[in-house]
């Protein structure tokens, strides 16, 4: 019942390989020859977690939990101490996991199922749209892409190449068009052509620019004119190398659109991914997909226990 086939799991483990080095192996170095916890140890632990972008708040919560537990227990060997650490960190990271990854071939609750993709500039929205389109297409769904990034130079052309690779039709009006009108066209076309999924690629926008965020709210309103429940899904794309600002980004986007999940990209090159955990812990937003490479099939359903396992270096199965 694994969510990853063999190949994909190895990609994730490989991608997170560096994270493991900085987390599990670093922890092992600190616990070496130790059976008790002192201030120096806690400080080291704090440094290790912070350097994995776990975030100050989440880090402090983990350190507090460990301090408390160490007050009531004693450890006979470094292995025991190590085990306790892994256990606590794992627990903290698992805590908010309320997400259920849905396979691409599972039936969708609506038709057409409209998915809006949002995020800051350079996060990897367009590539994520292409990957999602390809996955849905392969799962036998009829997919359409709406090019609502009408701002960035050549965004339409970029999406066109991706759409061809994924073998799905693209609806758009080119640079400078009104994004809301593109969305209306796409949703109308999807209804007319009986499509299953509409993926809407939007322009990158920094979350502190209110006029751009308002534009997003307008896109939402326009989509609703055609289908009252649309968009059924709003995915926020976050760059996996982003630091503490990621939480702020998510918070601001949530104010303007009803974000239903997160896509974390670029997890192949980074030693991090810790931000995934602080976001889901602080904002209770489910991570739905992770991007682990530039190829069109380098997108995976997010499985928290796998992720934590890979992060801590004790993947099962």
């Amino acid at each position, binding site marked *: 019942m694994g969510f990853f086939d063999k190949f994909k799991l190895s990609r994730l483990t490989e991608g997170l390989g*560096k994270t493991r080095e900085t987390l599990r192996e670093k922890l092992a170095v600190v616990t070496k020859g130790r059976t008790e916890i002192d201030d120096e140890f806690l400080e080291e632990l704090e*440094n290790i977690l*912070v*350097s*994995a*972008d776990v975030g*100050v708040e989440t880090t402090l919560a983990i350190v507090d939990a460990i301090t408390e537990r160490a007050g009531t227990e004693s450890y006979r060997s470094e292995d025991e101490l190590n085990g306790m650490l892994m256990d606590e960190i794992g627990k903290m990271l698992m805590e908010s996991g309320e997400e259920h990854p849905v396979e691409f071939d599972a039936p969708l609750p609506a038709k057409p199922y409209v998915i809006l993709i949002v995020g*800051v*500039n*350079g*996060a*990897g929205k367009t590539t994520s749209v292409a990957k999602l389109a390809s996955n849905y297409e392969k799962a036998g769904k009829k997919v359409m892409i709406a090019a609502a990034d009408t*701002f*960035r*130079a*050549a*965004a*339409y*052309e*970029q*999406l*066109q*190449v*991706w759409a061809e690779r994924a073998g799905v039709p693209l609806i758009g009006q080119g*640079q400078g068009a009104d994004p809301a009108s593109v969305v209306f066209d796409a949703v109308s076309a999807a209804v007319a052509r009986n499509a299953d999924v509409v993926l809407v690629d939007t322009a990158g926008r*920094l*979350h*502190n*620019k*209110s*006029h751009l965020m308002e534009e997003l709210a307008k896109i939402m309103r326009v989509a609703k004119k055609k289908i009252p429940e649309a968009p059924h899904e709003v995915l926020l794309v976050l*760059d996996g*190398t*982003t*630091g*503490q*600002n*990621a939480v*702020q*980004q998510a918070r601001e986007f949530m104010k303007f659109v009803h974000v239903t999940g997160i896509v974390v990209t*670029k997890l*192949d*090159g*980074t*030693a*991090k991914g810790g*931000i995934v955990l602080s976001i889901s812990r602080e904002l209770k937003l489910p991570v739905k997909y992770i991007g682990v490479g*530039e190829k069109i099939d380098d997108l995976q359903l997010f499985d928290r226990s796998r992720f934590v396992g890979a992060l801590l270096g004790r993947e099962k199965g």
Partner: protein
Amino acid sequence: MFESLSDKLDGAFKKLAGQATINEINIGIAMRDIKRALLGADVNYKVVKKLVEDVRQKSLGEGVIKSVSPAQMIVKIVSDELTELMGGEQKPLALSSSRLPAVVMVAGLQGSGKTTFAAKLAKRLKKSGRNPLLVAADVYRPAAVDQLKTLGAEVSVPVFSIEEKDAMKVAMQGLEAAKAGAHDVLIVDTAGRLQIDDAMMAEAEALKNALKPDELLFVVDSMMGQEAVNTAKAFNDRLDFDGVVLTKLDGDSRGGAALSIRHVVEKPIKFMSVGEKVDDLDQFYPDRMAQRILGMGDIVSFVEKAQESLDMEATLQMQKKLMKNEFDLNDFFDQLQQLKKMGSMQSLIEMVPGLNKMVPKQDLENLDFKPIEAIISSMTKEEKSRPEIINGSRRQRIALGSGTRVQDVNMLLKQFGEMKKMMRSVSKLSGNGRKITSQNLALDKFLKR
């Protein structure tokens, strides 16, 4: 939005009241707060550790001066230290004048903003009298060439590109094209690459060896987290770049990555990119960055932005009118327009230290000038210059004309009256008419206020 470091430290230093000096004991909590503030700003933890130790040494034994709170003093020490660490002064682009064309090569991770930066730099160089040529050497990302072409057209700088899957061939032919076309600067945009992708890093290395750029610039997203250090180090080990470009600083990230990178690779930060428009490229100012990392706002940028968008002459006239108390609804309307030109209230307020705390965010979000503008536009000339003549029936007409209610008109007139009263008292205070400049708003003065 961000609680500034000095707010945090104020709490820690409440206990200090009545103590004469900063010592080992009373500085402990402050150091912890500094550490967390810096970590929260994405400064690398190793850099934080060193910085906190330096600040501790410098702070010890400092006398507590009455006019400055200990918190402010330590923030000043931290701010100075950060500025120092970030390179003290700004370093300009060093392009050779003997070799033609001079070559600038741009490299970095995917999505860091290389292509946009390349176009911005081209525009900047063109403005300074150079004749640049852009080369689209990103042969991997779909439509990357189209993107550069569109941006090139926008800044009126030609873009060299060929149908070719080999970046080296594109770059070398671009170089020849620059020589043939008498271009004096060549800007080579390269594909985004991960530092762990050996083949791609080798490509960048080969490009560097072949092009021998005067400036190899590493472009990095200012929102990057702890990973910034590893990325910058890996790029520097392979490419030994000449300078750093920080992008997306128009976001609200604190940009601690700037400090980490600077510290680890010891290369100057040459530019910062602050928007999506091709004009949004700035020199890098270490002192402003230091204040940003500390969450202290950017008072200098605020003043500059204000000066840029405000019509200075009109403002001076306005000041005269204010002094004589001749300010009327026409002037009020003009002021609204000027305010709108400066951008959203929210972003302005965030630039001013302390102000974001004083003004609740909800109030700002609800701030809508449109009805006010409509009401004023529905008045006659005479009514605008002499609001006191607006009686009941006039109010009714104005409300009808502007699509508002009489209550709204009443409210506006009442508020305007109060504003005028307030201005009268302000104009009495500011009788010396001193102009606001970045000089007299320097951080030191701000702290000693």
